[in-house]
Protein backbone atom coordinates (compact mmCIF):
# COMPACT_ATOMS: atom_id res chain seq x y z
CA UNK A 1 0.00 0.00 0.00
CA UNK A 2 2.67 2.44 1.00
CA UNK A 3 4.62 2.27 -2.25
CA UNK A 4 1.37 2.75 -4.04
CA UNK A 5 1.11 6.36 -2.86
CA UNK A 6 4.45 7.46 -4.27
CA UNK A 7 3.95 5.45 -7.46
CA UNK A 8 0.56 6.98 -8.10
CA UNK A 9 1.92 10.43 -7.41
CA UNK A 10 4.85 9.92 -9.76
CA UNK A 11 2.70 8.45 -12.47
CA UNK A 12 0.41 11.47 -12.44
CA UNK A 13 3.00 14.25 -11.79
CA UNK A 14 6.22 12.83 -13.22
CA UNK A 15 7.60 16.30 -13.97
CA UNK A 16 6.75 17.70 -10.54
CA UNK A 17 8.23 15.04 -8.28
CA UNK A 18 11.97 15.65 -7.84
CA UNK A 19 12.84 12.63 -5.71
CA UNK A 20 11.20 10.18 -3.33
CA UNK A 21 12.25 7.84 -0.59
CA UNK A 22 10.61 5.37 1.78
CA UNK A 23 12.07 4.61 5.18
CA UNK A 24 10.47 2.35 7.78
CA UNK A 25 7.14 2.78 6.07
CA UNK A 26 7.34 6.56 5.88
CA UNK A 27 6.98 7.90 2.37
CA UNK A 28 8.53 11.20 1.41
CA UNK A 29 8.35 13.06 -1.86
CA UNK A 30 10.20 16.23 -2.80
CA UNK A 31 7.97 18.17 -5.16
CA UNK A 32 8.17 21.41 -7.08
CA UNK A 33 5.93 24.29 -6.15
CA UNK A 34 4.78 25.13 -9.70
CA UNK A 35 1.67 22.95 -9.66
CA UNK A 36 1.47 22.44 -5.94
CA UNK A 37 -2.24 23.19 -5.52
CA UNK A 38 -3.10 20.87 -8.38
CA UNK A 39 -0.91 18.16 -6.88
CA UNK A 40 -2.41 18.56 -3.42
CA UNK A 41 -5.93 18.50 -4.84
CA UNK A 42 -5.06 15.25 -6.61
CA UNK A 43 -3.82 13.75 -3.34
CA UNK A 44 -7.08 14.70 -1.67
CA UNK A 45 -9.53 13.75 -4.41
CA UNK A 46 -7.99 10.63 -5.94
CA UNK A 47 -10.02 7.61 -4.84
CA UNK A 48 -6.93 5.49 -4.18
CA UNK A 49 -5.08 8.16 -2.22
CA UNK A 50 -7.89 10.06 -0.45
CA UNK A 51 -5.71 12.18 1.84
CA UNK A 52 -8.51 13.83 3.74
CA UNK A 53 -6.62 14.83 6.89
CA UNK A 54 -4.02 17.62 6.93
CA UNK A 55 -1.81 16.58 9.84
CA UNK A 56 0.97 19.13 9.92
CA UNK A 57 2.63 21.88 7.97
CA UNK A 58 5.96 23.31 8.99
CA UNK A 59 9.23 24.70 7.66
CA UNK A 60 12.84 23.60 8.06
CA UNK A 61 15.59 26.22 7.96
CA UNK A 62 18.85 24.78 6.59
CA UNK A 63 20.73 28.03 7.12
CA UNK A 64 24.28 27.71 5.76
CA UNK A 65 23.88 23.94 5.49
CA UNK A 66 21.86 23.40 2.34
CA UNK A 67 20.74 25.26 -0.73
CA UNK A 68 18.02 26.26 -1.20
CA UNK A 69 17.64 27.31 2.39
CA UNK A 70 14.06 26.40 3.31
CA UNK A 71 11.93 23.29 3.06
CA UNK A 72 8.18 23.53 3.50
CA UNK A 73 6.97 20.18 4.88
CA UNK A 74 3.44 18.81 4.56
CA UNK A 75 2.24 15.78 6.52
CA UNK A 76 -0.92 14.15 5.23
CA UNK A 77 -3.02 11.21 6.37
CA UNK A 78 -5.94 9.30 4.92
CA UNK A 79 -8.50 8.18 7.47
CA UNK A 80 -10.13 5.85 4.96
CA UNK A 81 -7.00 4.30 3.41
CA UNK A 82 -4.95 4.49 6.62
CA UNK A 83 -1.81 5.70 4.93
CA UNK A 84 0.45 8.72 5.26
CA UNK A 85 2.72 10.79 3.08
CA UNK A 86 5.21 13.56 3.66
CA UNK A 87 5.74 16.22 1.01
CA UNK A 88 8.66 18.62 0.95
CA UNK A 89 8.95 21.73 -1.16
CA UNK A 90 12.33 23.44 -1.40
CA UNK A 91 12.26 27.23 -1.54
CA UNK A 92 15.04 29.74 -1.80
CA UNK A 93 15.64 32.51 0.71
CA UNK A 94 15.26 35.26 -1.89
CA UNK A 95 12.07 33.74 -3.23
CA UNK A 96 10.53 32.19 -0.09
CA UNK A 97 6.97 31.57 -1.22
CA UNK A 98 4.69 28.67 -2.07
CA UNK A 99 1.05 28.59 -3.18
CA UNK A 100 -1.37 28.41 -0.26
CA UNK A 101 -2.89 25.00 0.49
CA UNK A 102 -5.86 26.66 2.17
CA UNK A 103 -8.22 26.04 -0.79
CA UNK A 104 -7.46 22.30 -0.58
CA UNK A 105 -7.48 21.83 3.20
CA UNK A 106 -8.86 24.81 5.17
CA UNK A 107 -7.33 23.14 8.22
CA UNK A 108 -3.92 24.38 7.11
CA UNK A 109 -5.07 27.98 7.67
CA UNK A 110 -3.30 28.60 10.99
CA UNK A 111 -0.36 26.34 10.10
CA UNK A 112 0.50 28.55 7.18
CA UNK A 113 0.14 31.70 9.27
CA UNK A 114 2.44 30.17 11.88
CA UNK A 115 5.00 29.19 9.24
CA UNK A 116 4.91 32.74 7.87
CA UNK A 117 5.16 34.26 11.34
CA UNK A 118 8.10 32.22 12.57
CA UNK A 119 9.98 31.35 9.36
CA UNK A 120 8.97 34.06 6.92
CA UNK A 121 7.76 31.89 4.07
CA UNK A 122 4.87 33.45 2.12
CA UNK A 123 1.83 31.35 1.26
CA UNK A 124 0.40 33.04 -1.78
CA UNK A 125 -3.38 33.13 -1.91
CA UNK A 126 -3.94 32.72 1.81
CA UNK A 127 -7.11 34.64 2.72
CA UNK A 128 -5.72 36.11 5.96
CA UNK A 129 -1.96 36.20 5.61
CA UNK A 130 -1.07 37.78 8.98
CA UNK A 131 1.07 36.85 11.94
CA UNK A 132 -0.56 34.43 14.38
CA UNK A 133 1.82 34.22 17.36
CA UNK A 134 3.97 37.32 17.39
CA UNK A 135 2.36 40.73 17.52
CA UNK A 136 1.83 43.24 14.76
CA UNK A 137 4.96 45.31 14.43
CA UNK A 138 7.28 42.46 15.38
CA UNK A 139 10.35 42.57 13.20
CA UNK A 140 11.80 39.45 11.64
CA UNK A 141 10.95 35.78 11.97
CA UNK A 142 12.25 34.37 15.26
CA UNK A 143 12.69 30.70 14.36
CA UNK A 144 15.05 31.50 11.51
CA UNK A 145 18.51 30.35 12.43
CA UNK A 146 19.96 33.80 11.82
CA UNK A 147 17.54 35.57 14.18
CA UNK A 148 19.76 36.96 16.99
CA UNK A 149 19.39 34.74 20.03
CA UNK A 150 19.42 37.65 22.48
CA UNK A 151 17.20 39.98 20.52
CA UNK A 152 14.16 41.17 22.51
CA UNK A 153 11.26 43.23 21.24
CA UNK A 154 9.30 44.25 24.35
CA UNK A 155 5.79 45.59 23.93
CA UNK A 156 5.76 47.63 27.13
CA UNK A 157 8.06 50.30 28.43
CA UNK A 158 10.63 48.70 30.67
CA UNK A 159 11.08 50.07 34.18
CA UNK A 160 14.63 51.34 33.72
CA UNK A 161 13.69 53.18 30.54
CA UNK A 162 11.05 55.41 32.12
CA UNK A 163 11.83 59.12 32.32
Amino acid sequence: MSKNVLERLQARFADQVEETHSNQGDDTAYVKRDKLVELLTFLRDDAELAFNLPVDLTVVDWYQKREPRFEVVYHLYSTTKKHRVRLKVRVDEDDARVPSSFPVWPGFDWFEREAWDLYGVRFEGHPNHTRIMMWEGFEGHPLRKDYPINKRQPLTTLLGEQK
Partner: protein
Amino acid sequence: MGLEGQLTGTFVGTRLSDALNWARKYSLFQYPFVTACCGMEFMATACSHYDISRFGAEIPRFSPRQADLLFVVGTVSHKLAPVLRKVYDQMCDPKWVVAFGACASSGGFYDNYCTVQGIDTIIPVDVYIPGCPPRPEQVLDALMMLQEKIQAEPLEKQA
Protein backbone atom coordinates in the same frame (compact mmCIF):
# COMPACT_ATOMS: atom_id res chain seq x y z
CA MET B 1 7.27 64.47 84.78
CA GLY B 2 6.09 66.39 81.73
CA LEU B 3 4.71 63.30 80.05
CA GLU B 4 2.62 65.45 77.73
CA GLY B 5 5.83 66.85 76.32
CA GLN B 6 6.96 63.38 75.34
CA LEU B 7 3.67 62.48 73.64
CA THR B 8 4.77 64.09 70.40
CA GLY B 9 3.35 63.47 66.99
CA THR B 10 6.28 61.22 66.23
CA PHE B 11 5.47 58.92 69.10
CA VAL B 12 1.79 58.57 68.21
CA GLY B 13 2.59 58.23 64.50
CA THR B 14 4.95 55.34 65.02
CA ARG B 15 2.42 53.39 67.03
CA LEU B 16 -0.27 54.03 64.47
CA SER B 17 1.93 52.65 61.68
CA ASP B 18 2.63 49.58 63.77
CA ALA B 19 -1.07 48.95 64.23
CA LEU B 20 -1.92 49.71 60.63
CA ASN B 21 0.88 47.55 59.23
CA TRP B 22 -0.14 44.75 61.55
CA ALA B 23 -3.64 44.91 60.10
CA ARG B 24 -2.30 45.13 56.56
CA LYS B 25 0.07 42.21 56.78
CA TYR B 26 -2.61 39.85 58.08
CA SER B 27 -5.32 40.79 55.60
CA LEU B 28 -3.57 40.47 52.24
CA PHE B 29 -6.06 40.12 49.41
CA GLN B 30 -4.17 38.42 46.60
CA TYR B 31 -4.61 38.68 42.89
CA PRO B 32 -3.25 35.42 41.43
CA PHE B 33 -1.85 36.26 37.98
CA VAL B 34 -1.39 32.61 37.05
CA THR B 35 0.07 31.79 33.64
CA ALA B 36 1.89 28.48 33.93
CA CYS B 37 2.66 25.31 35.87
CA CYS B 38 3.62 27.20 39.06
CA GLY B 39 -0.13 27.67 39.41
CA MET B 40 -0.41 24.09 40.69
CA GLU B 41 1.94 24.90 43.56
CA PHE B 42 0.04 28.09 44.22
CA MET B 43 -3.18 26.06 44.48
CA ALA B 44 -1.47 23.57 46.78
CA THR B 45 -0.34 26.44 48.98
CA ALA B 46 -3.79 27.98 49.02
CA CYS B 47 -5.64 24.75 49.79
CA SER B 48 -6.07 23.00 53.11
CA HIS B 49 -2.79 21.01 53.27
CA TYR B 50 -0.65 24.12 53.48
CA ASP B 51 -3.51 26.52 54.16
CA ILE B 52 -2.36 30.02 53.31
CA SER B 53 -5.26 31.36 55.38
CA ARG B 54 -3.22 30.68 58.50
CA PHE B 55 -1.21 33.70 57.43
CA GLY B 56 -4.18 35.92 56.78
CA ALA B 57 -3.96 35.74 53.00
CA GLU B 58 -6.73 33.32 52.21
CA ILE B 59 -8.90 35.46 49.96
CA PRO B 60 -8.03 35.57 46.26
CA ARG B 61 -9.58 38.52 44.44
CA PHE B 62 -9.96 38.32 40.70
CA SER B 63 -10.37 42.05 40.36
CA PRO B 64 -7.15 44.02 40.75
CA ARG B 65 -9.14 46.86 42.29
CA GLN B 66 -9.95 44.71 45.30
CA ALA B 67 -6.46 43.24 45.71
CA ASP B 68 -3.33 44.50 47.42
CA LEU B 69 -0.96 41.60 46.75
CA LEU B 70 -0.11 40.59 43.19
CA PHE B 71 1.16 37.05 42.81
CA VAL B 72 2.76 36.71 39.37
CA VAL B 73 2.78 32.95 39.02
CA GLY B 74 4.55 31.62 35.95
CA THR B 75 6.05 32.66 32.63
CA VAL B 76 5.19 36.07 31.23
CA SER B 77 5.62 36.62 27.51
CA HIS B 78 6.20 39.97 25.87
CA LYS B 79 2.73 39.68 24.40
CA LEU B 80 1.25 39.36 27.89
CA ALA B 81 3.42 42.03 29.49
CA PRO B 82 1.07 44.99 28.76
CA VAL B 83 -1.75 43.08 30.48
CA LEU B 84 0.36 42.49 33.58
CA ARG B 85 1.31 46.15 33.60
CA LYS B 86 -2.34 47.19 33.36
CA VAL B 87 -3.36 44.83 36.18
CA TYR B 88 -0.61 46.29 38.37
CA ASP B 89 -1.60 49.85 37.54
CA GLN B 90 -5.23 49.15 38.44
CA MET B 91 -4.37 47.98 41.95
CA CYS B 92 -4.82 50.57 44.71
CA ASP B 93 -1.97 51.59 47.00
CA PRO B 94 -0.60 50.18 49.16
CA LYS B 95 0.25 47.18 46.98
CA TRP B 96 2.89 44.51 46.88
CA VAL B 97 4.18 42.10 44.25
CA VAL B 98 5.55 38.59 44.61
CA ALA B 99 7.43 37.00 41.69
CA PHE B 100 6.48 33.35 42.03
CA GLY B 101 8.98 30.86 40.58
CA ALA B 102 12.02 31.05 38.34
CA CYS B 103 10.18 32.28 35.23
CA ALA B 104 8.51 35.25 36.89
CA SER B 105 11.75 36.11 38.70
CA SER B 106 14.19 35.87 35.81
CA GLY B 107 12.56 34.29 32.77
CA GLY B 108 13.73 30.86 33.92
CA PHE B 109 15.09 28.70 31.16
CA TYR B 110 12.99 30.57 28.60
CA ASP B 111 15.94 32.65 27.45
CA ASN B 112 14.32 33.37 24.10
CA TYR B 113 12.68 35.88 21.80
CA CYS B 114 9.21 35.88 23.37
CA THR B 115 9.70 35.71 27.15
CA VAL B 116 10.05 38.59 29.59
CA GLN B 117 13.36 38.11 31.42
CA GLY B 118 11.91 38.66 34.88
CA ILE B 119 8.81 40.70 35.69
CA ASP B 120 10.96 43.22 37.54
CA THR B 121 11.76 44.67 34.13
CA ILE B 122 8.09 45.74 33.98
CA ILE B 123 6.80 46.24 37.53
CA PRO B 124 8.49 46.59 40.93
CA VAL B 125 8.81 43.34 42.88
CA ASP B 126 8.92 42.94 46.67
CA VAL B 127 9.72 39.26 47.12
CA TYR B 128 11.18 36.71 44.69
CA ILE B 129 10.54 33.00 45.12
CA PRO B 130 13.08 30.77 43.39
CA GLY B 131 12.29 27.25 42.27
CA CYS B 132 10.87 25.53 39.24
CA PRO B 133 8.29 25.27 40.66
CA PRO B 134 8.80 26.38 44.30
CA ARG B 135 7.46 24.16 47.04
CA PRO B 136 4.56 25.49 49.12
CA GLU B 137 6.89 25.91 52.10
CA GLN B 138 8.91 28.39 50.06
CA VAL B 139 5.75 30.29 49.20
CA LEU B 140 4.76 30.52 52.85
CA ASP B 141 8.29 31.61 53.69
CA ALA B 142 8.04 34.34 51.07
CA LEU B 143 4.71 35.43 52.49
CA MET B 144 6.23 35.73 55.95
CA MET B 145 9.14 37.72 54.53
CA LEU B 146 6.66 40.04 52.89
CA GLN B 147 4.81 40.41 56.19
CA GLU B 148 8.05 41.39 57.88
CA LYS B 149 8.62 43.96 55.19
CA ILE B 150 5.09 45.34 55.55
CA GLN B 151 5.47 45.60 59.31
CA ALA B 152 8.58 47.73 58.90
CA GLU B 153 7.07 50.11 56.38
CA PRO B 154 6.41 53.80 57.08
CA LEU B 155 2.86 54.97 57.46
CA GLU B 156 2.62 56.35 53.97
CA LYS B 157 3.90 53.60 51.73
CA GLN B 158 5.50 54.98 48.66
CA ALA B 159 4.23 53.33 45.51
